[in-house]
């Protein structure tokens, strides 16, 4: 599963810690999501999409 979280975050000039704080998770979790080591739950994926004013499919992509 690929995602565009890092690109979207950097485009907005946000740090991982700031995005984590906005979503109620840690900086480590944002880093794990960005590197694909952690697949977020549906509520968190929706929160990420909502934060970037996109839909989930525009951020997360099933590359299989």
């Amino acid at each position, binding site marked *: 599963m690929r995602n565009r979280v890092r690109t979207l975050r950097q485009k907005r000039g946000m740090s991982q810690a700031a995005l984590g704080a906005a979503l*109620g998770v840690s900086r480590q979790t944002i880093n794990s999501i960005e590197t694909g080591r952690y697949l977020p739950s549906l509520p968190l994926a929706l929160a990420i999409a909502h934060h970037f004013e996109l839909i989930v499919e525009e951020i997360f992509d099933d590359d299989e």
Partner: protein
Amino acid sequence: MTTNDTQKQSTRQWMLPGFAVAIGIAYLIAGLVGDEVGFGLFGLALMVTVAVALLLVRRRSETVQGLLDRRDERIVQIDVKATAFAGSVVTAAVLIAFIVEIARGNDGSPYAALGAIGGLAYLASVVWHRVRG
């Protein structure tokens, strides 16, 4: 985050340190009842130290913070996996100790009872989570 969420988070942060202190008080009471005052005082001091350490370390460690406030779903998952692993290790140790006790010609206590509690707790948990969906 709502005010209610903030209150819940604040309450959660104190649960683990509070539990540690409660265990320390239980050690103290056990020590006083069993005429092992030194053990009781040491146990209380140790558990209060654990509680204070948790509260201090949470400011520097996102992981400890996450374990205490349980807001971060990834850290909660890590906690669940670590708990399952620790439970598996304890279960294996109890089974091995039970077998060793039987091989020594003993009745296997207290390991038989501990194993039974573990097995029943697992079954009850499976049923509970199955019903809750």
